[in-house]
């Protein structure tokens, strides 16, 4: 069948390995369409200020062009879609995370310096003796308010129109009433025209109106009484020469500290927001150095290793035991294996939530059994020891069927005559297991064990869904729980409501990565040996 297909495809002129003009033209056309799309995206993103994203797309575009234009990159053409997605979805976030780990990016340091200064410079305050205005209130059909301002005691001056948050440059003033003020105002940015309102309305809305800042960059006022408004003044003024910010209200001078990303006064007060800066290895030093800052990290790290190790070893051991017990001559083997595969097939999120119900100390069967077994009521969700036992039990439950299946496959691959030889030598069952079965098994299953250790190291779902890392550890600088593993602690640091510390969370992520990458590289040495064996066949 296959041979026939090949015959058909092999007619002369059907392309073959050589490059014809039409395939080249087709390839160039495809590349041009791709480039046009990419170019449009890069320009749009750049225009919107997403320069990091635009850079990534540009890198991918250059790479794709290189791959499809250069003959020596031919093998890469096969993986070009994969490479493009890999760079965009996997590599870029990694680089981004590594970069963030060298910054103080987080709550209070989210903006770059220029933008943080802008935010501060927009803050205004109401001075004791500010420039005073008389105002007239206008309202449109949508209920929006507008103010017409005239400087107090100067009726002849050009009136100014302001709405909340904005001052209007070219308002169209309607016909003047008897008191010399317009009956209505049309503001180009707003659809509905504004009509002058009666005093009663002002009185009713006064308390709301007094909370609102009218006007923007040129004039900003706040209403102070029934017909008076006072100009707000810019509170913080930045001086580029000295890199300081002066608080006009208090007269305090804040000096920019680019090491910490903050403006700090002489007596140590800090302006909020600060700004994001690169802070070198400070996040890493925090992890490795100062015990006060490091807080519960040692505890969490030890538990992470114990959790991953115990889960892996116990599920392997249980899986191996069952595989050995079921060996060959076991009645109902097929049925039992099918039943064992069920826990493995059910989505983990669901079983974790079900286990949470089972461990419930009041109504869950397992929780009740545990309390009866130990003779005292135990609430696993509040007990720093038993919560760990529960988590390992669940994780073993999730993983061991996999090892039953793997081990029974691997056991069958061990040549039977080796056991016969061992029998002749008089080795008993335990010796055979120690000297033959286990070593031979580990050669094949070893890399998978390392693989599941790596997976368990980061099993966020289980920790988060079962008890959210709890019960809490008392007296830590940032919240942490007894059952938190590193990755769930990272989650707390990065996404917890108390205050986000992306920089520190990223640094811990990078450290986790280094630990796991070292293990992976170690494993890779073995895999490479395999590959060479495979290639020589």
């Amino acid at each position, binding site marked *: 069948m296959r041979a026939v297909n090949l015959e058909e495809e092999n007619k002369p002129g059907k392309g073959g390995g050589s490059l014809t003009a039409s395939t080249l033209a087709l390839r160039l056309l495809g590349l041009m369409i791709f480039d046009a799309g990419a170019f449009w995206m890069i320009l749009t993103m750049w225009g919107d200020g997403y320069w990091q994203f635009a850079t990534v797309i540009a890198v991918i575009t250059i790479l794709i062009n290189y791959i499809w234009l250069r003959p020596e990159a*031919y093998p890469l053409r*096969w993986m070009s879609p994969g490479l493009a*997605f890999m760079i965009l979805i996997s590599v870029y976030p990694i680089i981004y995370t590594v970069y963030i780990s060298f910054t103080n990016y987080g709550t209070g340091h989210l903006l770059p310096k220029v933008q943080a200064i802008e935010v501060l410079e927009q803050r205004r305050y109401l001075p004791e003796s500010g420039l005073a205005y008389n105002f007239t209130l206008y309202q449109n059909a949508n209920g929006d308010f507008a103010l017409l301002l005239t400087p107090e005691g100067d009726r002849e001056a050009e009136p100014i129109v302001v709405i909340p948050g904005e001052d209007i440059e070219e308002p169209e003033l309607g016909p003047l009433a008897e008191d010399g003020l317009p009956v209505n105002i049309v503001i180009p940015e707003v659809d509905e025209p504004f009509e002058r309102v009666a005093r009663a309305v002002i009185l009713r809305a006064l308390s709301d109106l007094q909370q609102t800042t009218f006007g923007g960059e040129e004039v900003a006022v706040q209403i102070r009484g029934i017909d008076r408004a006072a100009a707000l003044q810019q509170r913080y003024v930045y001086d580029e020469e000295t890199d300081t910010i002066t608080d006009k209200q208090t007269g305090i001078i804040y000096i920019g500290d680019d090491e910490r990303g903050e403006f700090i006064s002489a007596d140590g007060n800090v302006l909020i927001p600060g700004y994001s800066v690169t802070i070198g290895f400070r996040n890493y030093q925090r992890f490795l150095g100062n015990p006060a800052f490091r807080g519960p990290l040692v505890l969490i790290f030890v538990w992470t290793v114990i959790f991953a190790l115990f889960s892996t070893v116990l599920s392997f051991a249980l899986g191996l035991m069952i595989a050995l017990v079921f060996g060959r001559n076991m009645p109902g083997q097929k049925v039992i294996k099918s039943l064992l595969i069920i826990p493995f097939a059910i989505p983990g999120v*669901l079983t974790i939530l079900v286990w949470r*119900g089972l461990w419930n100390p009041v*109504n869950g069967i397992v929780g*009740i059994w545990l309390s009866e077994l130990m003779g005292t009521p135990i609430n696993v969700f509040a007990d720093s020891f038993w919560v760990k036992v529960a988590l390992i039990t669940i994780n073993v439950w999730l993983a061991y069927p996999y090892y039953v299946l*793997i081990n029974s496959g691997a056991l069958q691959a061990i040549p039977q005559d080796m056991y016969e030889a061992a029998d002749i030598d008089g080795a008993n069952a335990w010796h055979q297991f120690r000297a033959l079965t286990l070593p031979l098994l580990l050669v094949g299953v070893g890399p998978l064990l390392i693989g599941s250790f790596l997976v368990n190291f980061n099993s966020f779902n289980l920790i988060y869904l079962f008890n959210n890392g709890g019960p809490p550890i008392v007296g830590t600088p940032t919240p942490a729980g007894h059952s938190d593993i590193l990755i769930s602690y990272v989650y707390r640091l990065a996404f917890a409501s108390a205050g986000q510390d992306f920089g520190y969370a990223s640094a811990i992520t990078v450290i986790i990565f280094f630990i796991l*990458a070292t293990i*992976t590289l170690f494993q890779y040495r073995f895999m490479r040996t395999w590959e060479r064996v495979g290639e020589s066949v």
Partner: protein
Amino acid sequence: MQVFWQSKKNQRRIVTAVKLLIAAVVLFYSLLPVVYTISSAFSPVQGVSRQLIPANPTLDNFREILYDQPFGLWMWNTTKIALISALLSAMITTLTAFAFSRFRFAGRGQLLLGILLIQVFPALMAMIALYSLLDQLGRCCIPALGLNTHGGLILIYMGGAMGLNVWLMKGFFDSIPRDIDESAMVDGASHWQTFWYLIFPLVRPIVIVVVILTFFGVYADWILPSIMIGTKSELFTLMLGLQTFIGNNYGQNWSVFAAGAVLGSILPVLVYILLQDKIVGGLTTGAVKG
């Protein structure tokens, strides 16, 4: 007169009995949550129950989850996302694995190692970058791939196409003798023709395994949709829907959740049981359930 356990026949019986006992204990451990979920699904009482078998079984929970909750919609969303992701990423994986297996080029080893290392980078922090990536992509250029879209989710799942499955599949390509390619090339076939007409039919079983594993990987995923889909319940995937459904008030919807869990597990359980030998073969070679 022999003692009972000294006879060979009796010894064998004892061994079998012990084995069956161990099997029973293990099966109990294994199936307890499953049985418990099924029984909760038929229980008339909401809330976690002490009973393993409910007193007055009822179908109300199934009615509730099927008719009063958007279960069907969630299921459809999940199936759609998982199927598209699985097919596309299997395609990418297959082409990549073929190139790794059949060509020798500069940087091949490093690239293979790089794929492996990328896998162990904790994806949680990458979510920050991916979140803003989808946000920006949706706002500037392609709304269908933005936040709160299924397209955006699928796009991110594509990033996983260059993963352990490449290693898995490369192993299978390696096991196919290269004589096949060489004789085809001698006859004038291009690489593409060799791949499509000769090699692909031989690796089709493992491609199907990769599709199935990816499908159920996406099917069971919870964290990515929970970050990228937000709170629009008509866009929820099944796992996200069921999790948020009981997330806030754990006990109150327990039995309805159990009914949903039973219904949501039928498909993967059936497929895994029917195809267990193939899937186990695929798993043994490389992928580890996450």
